[in-house]
């Protein structure tokens, strides 16, 4: 079912990622002093990209038997089976929309960047263009190129505009992620040579008959791990809180909101889709790592004194739930995982917007003991933070609820014990969120200076309102997300189930 029809002779998906490359070039041509023009170009084009993703979303027909739509195919290095193939399905569409939302709100939140604004905006938009590229690529090689394009600008963004041990955080993050992509490269080469087809077209690679069981079991590991590093899987998660804290606000939003989803998206789309038998073999270790992520991440978040570190660890915890949904390897679990990627992306972007921009840029401290009573000063920030927090706890009526509900249902069917143990993370999450709300926004005003803080600006209001609205709408009417997701997850889950049955016979 699709709501609108788009002319099919337009390369919509190329436009989506190019809509953020074009402003990068325009900005590069502007003078460094033209900060206002630079901001306007950045914001306008990120809005255009959001509008384009929305159009594509509405025009996608999830009832059609054709899973991938808006296909574009251009030969690139056909001698080696490397082509420029774009297409979207119900899994990549919510991610595309998420990236549009986060880059647009991130652009609004970046309005107060004064230092080296030109380079900042160029890198920020380039980063988001790379993210779009990953979500629309159907060629594994192309996907990897976009993936690295999305990771590298991070180094400079954190290194130049960051705070709190920024150079260390930037280097650590980049090396971890590039270490992950080293694994992926190994996986790519193996995928290319182990199958009977010499191609990187994922639609062809996903025909599981191509790879023997041994190949799948061995090379699932580097492919999955490589992406799981970016998803923040235990024990490769330590870059994430350090990096998030060091990064400037909009970069934290993009990073925790979207970039980590590249990791879980890659785990699903690349590793699990191409190697279903390999995935089945490793489900239990993944589920255990995800369990540790969820519970341990939440517990560490509970003990943080730094507001931003708390959010950073909450991301680790929630990404654990995403991975757990993937490890369930059934329709409901994976649907929950994709939904969680979307819900967590929006809410964590909102968290970082509140923490980094609305609070820290005003108070210049993120330590809980020094904050307090800010509800009276910036009430809007408190309200949107509470909305995001409730979603994060899994409160019915908000996006997070549906995601977590599905994930736990899925896990219950696969490994009931892990589902029960992971349940511990829910009260802990509620605990640290409520504690943070209390310590930052309620209670007495610790610092009388805070009474004279400047109020929120229009871009902040708009960004906060958009993100909060998306959380509420997705909570009330989740079907606009779940139906396309479910339709596209079905073939992947079925392949996994078949592979599981095969594995049983093999034993």
């Amino acid at each position: 079912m699709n709501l609108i029809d788009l002319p099919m002779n337009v390369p919509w998906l190329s436009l989506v990622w190019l809509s953020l490359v074009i402003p990068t070039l325009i900005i590069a041509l502007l003078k460094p002093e033209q900060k206002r023009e630079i901001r306007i170009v950045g914001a306008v084009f990120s809005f255009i990209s959001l509008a384009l993703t929305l159009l594509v979303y509405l025009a996608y027909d999830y009832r059609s038997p054709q899973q991938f739509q808006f296909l574009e195919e251009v030969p690139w290095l056909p001698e080696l089976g490397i082509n420029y193939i774009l297409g979207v399905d119900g899994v990549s569409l919510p991610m595309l929309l998420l990236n549009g939302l986060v880059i647009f709100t991130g652009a609004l939140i970046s309005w107060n960047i004064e230092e080296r604004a030109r380079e900042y905006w160029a890198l920020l938009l380039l980063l988001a263009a790379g993210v779009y590229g990953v979500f629309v690529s159907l060629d594994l090689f192309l996907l990897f190129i976009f993936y690295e394009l999305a990771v590298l600008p991070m180094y400079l963004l954190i290194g130049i505009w960051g705070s709190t041990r920024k150079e260390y955080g930037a280097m650590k993050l980049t090396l971890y992620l590039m270490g992950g992509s080293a694994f992926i490269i190994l996986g790519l080469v193996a995928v290319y040579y182990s199958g009977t087809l010499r191609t990187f077209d994922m639609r062809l690679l996903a025909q599981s008959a191509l790879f023997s069981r041994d190949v799948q079991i061995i090379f699932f590991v580097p492919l999955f791990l490589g992406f799981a590093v970016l998803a923040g899987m235990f024990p490769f998660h330590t870059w994430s809180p350090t990096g998030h804290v060091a990064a400037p606000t909009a970069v934290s939003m993009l990073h925790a909101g979207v970039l980590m989803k590249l990791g879980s998206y890659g785990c699903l789309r690349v590793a699990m889709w191409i190697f279903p038998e390999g995935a089945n073999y490793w489900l239990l270790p993944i589920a255990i790592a995800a369990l540790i992520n969820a519970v341990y991440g939440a517990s560490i978040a509970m003990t943080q004194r730094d507001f931003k570190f708390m959010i950073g660890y909450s991301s680790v915890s929630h990404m654990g739930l995403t991975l757990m949904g993937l490890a369930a390897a059934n329709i409901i679990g994976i649907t929950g995982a994709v939904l969680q990627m979307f819900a967590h992306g929006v809410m964590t972007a909102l968290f970082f917007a509140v923490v980094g921009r609305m609070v820290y840029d005003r108070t210049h401290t993120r330590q809980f003991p020094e904050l307090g009573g800010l509800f009276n000063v910036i009430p809007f920030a408190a309200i949107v933070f509470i909305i995001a927090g409730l979603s994060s706890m899994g409160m019915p009526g908000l996006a997070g609820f549906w995601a977590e509900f599905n994930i736990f249902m899925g896990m219950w069917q696969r490994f009931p014990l892990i589902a029960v143990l992971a349940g511990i993370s829910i009260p802990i999450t509620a605990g640290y969120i409520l504690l943070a709300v209390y310590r930052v926004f309620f209670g007495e005003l610790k610092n009388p200076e805070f009474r004279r803080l400047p109020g929120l600006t229009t871009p902040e209001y708009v960004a906060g309102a958009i993100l909060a609205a998306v959380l509420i709408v997705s909570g009330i009417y989740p079907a606009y997300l779940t139906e396309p997701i479910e339709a596209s997850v079905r073939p992947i889950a079925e392949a996994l189930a078949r592979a599981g049955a095969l594995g049983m016979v093999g034993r």
Partner: protein
Amino acid sequence: MSFQITDIPRILLELMLLLLGLLVLGSDILTRWGRGAQAQAERAREAGQLTAVGLGLVFIVGLVQSRFLFTVPDPTGGPLDILLTLGRNLQAGGPGGSPVLGAFATDEFTMVARLTFIGAALLTSLLAMGYRLTANPGEFYSLLIFSTLGMSIMAAATEFILAYLALELSSISLYVLAGYFRESERSPEAGLKYFLFGSLSSAIFLYGISLTYGFVASENQKAGGTPIIATLFSEVGRFATGDAARSPLLILGMLFVIAGLGYKISVVPFHTWAPDVYQGAPPPVTAFLSTASKAAGFLLLYRLLTTAFPGAVGAPRLEEFSGWTSVLAILALVTLLVGNLAALPQTNARRLLAYSSIGHAGFLLLAMLLWSSTSPVDRTFGTAALIYYLIVYTLANLGSFGVLAVLTKALGGDDLNAMQGLWQRNMLLTLMMTILILSLAGIPPLAGFWAKFFVFMAGYQAGAVPLVTVAVVMTVVSLYYYLRFLKAMWILPAPSTSPISTPPVANAAIIVSTVLVALLGLLPNLIWGTISSAASVAAR
């Protein structure tokens, strides 16, 4: 087999290089020059201009002759007939045919190599002009050209004596160039060190050749023939098959040949000269030394091993000796480890890049391992990966050493600290250096990424999975030190904000290499087809 008059167009490029070298030298000697600084600068500029224009001309002739871009149509009776006839005659001497005198192959492989070396020499001459060296400019530029000539012959040689002479021609010119700054502290040291290592390696190479001769002679005698001295690669290859390929004499000869060339391509453990020489030599010479010279070494090594020792190819396994691929696999392993790990603590930018280029030699060796496969498709792919990597590496390294040359001239030093805050002082240079460094690091969508990916594929297909794993891990290690360049240029505060200007000629050279690195990354198919055809000739 005798020299035909029709062979002249086939070695036209080498003849042109020879003539150009003599012309540059002669014009410098025959002109009357004043002694003042002004006259010196003018003299240097004229020698440089003559070299650059001449090399550009040779490059264009080579490009036309190669038929890589277009084939000249038959004359049609129009006014352009003279040009068309000229073009056709030129292309008639293009790639193809059996080697001249059996010793000088004029195939696509040679053509690609020649174009690479001549292009690199052209860019180097531009960098040297920007560097404004004033002492004996005629000698400087003519040595550069003679060295290029030697490299072209190295890539074409299919005979031991010619290979040795070419190696010496290119090396001896470079020894002099490396020690060219007589007044500086490090340059004469670099020249001497390079010379000592080089001449020792030549001796080893020669010894390897003589053992190989001995092998052929004794094999021939066993077969009942008279002992002959075989100097063609292919003749050695004819005898070195089956059981004879495991003869200790041949294996020893092969090991000495690899060791002798190992210095030219600076693989561990024959690399120790490289950091000192790269740091000490005049910056434009370093740019040339680290790229074209290394590429020539690799191409000669490739042709030599695959034609003279195809019977002793073995398998690239690390745990047992089975042929030259296992030797190369071990060399690749230590080169990757030492080159990349030793680069980590460096503080001097040129020394850092010297170690990084040792690391790159390790990646390049991976591509050669695929020769152990018997499938022609695989062999072609491995060769193509090698050539592609060499071209891309040449461009990126030449460009980044070019940037360092500009900075050395402007700032008087090339420590990483000196580059701090470069974005404030010269944005264009910073951007270009960033692109070049990221290409060296293998970040997509730049050409360096494809190059690394291709050699990983070659290594994997050759069955050297543990080695490829090490190589992949080493790319992450290398990223750490490449990021230090970015950190210095973009993040750390500048010691001064006074702008740095780039000499226009040097800028042109750096822009060309940067644009090509980016372009070949976005559209690798631009040269992949040509390279594949060159590779299929070489891989047969």
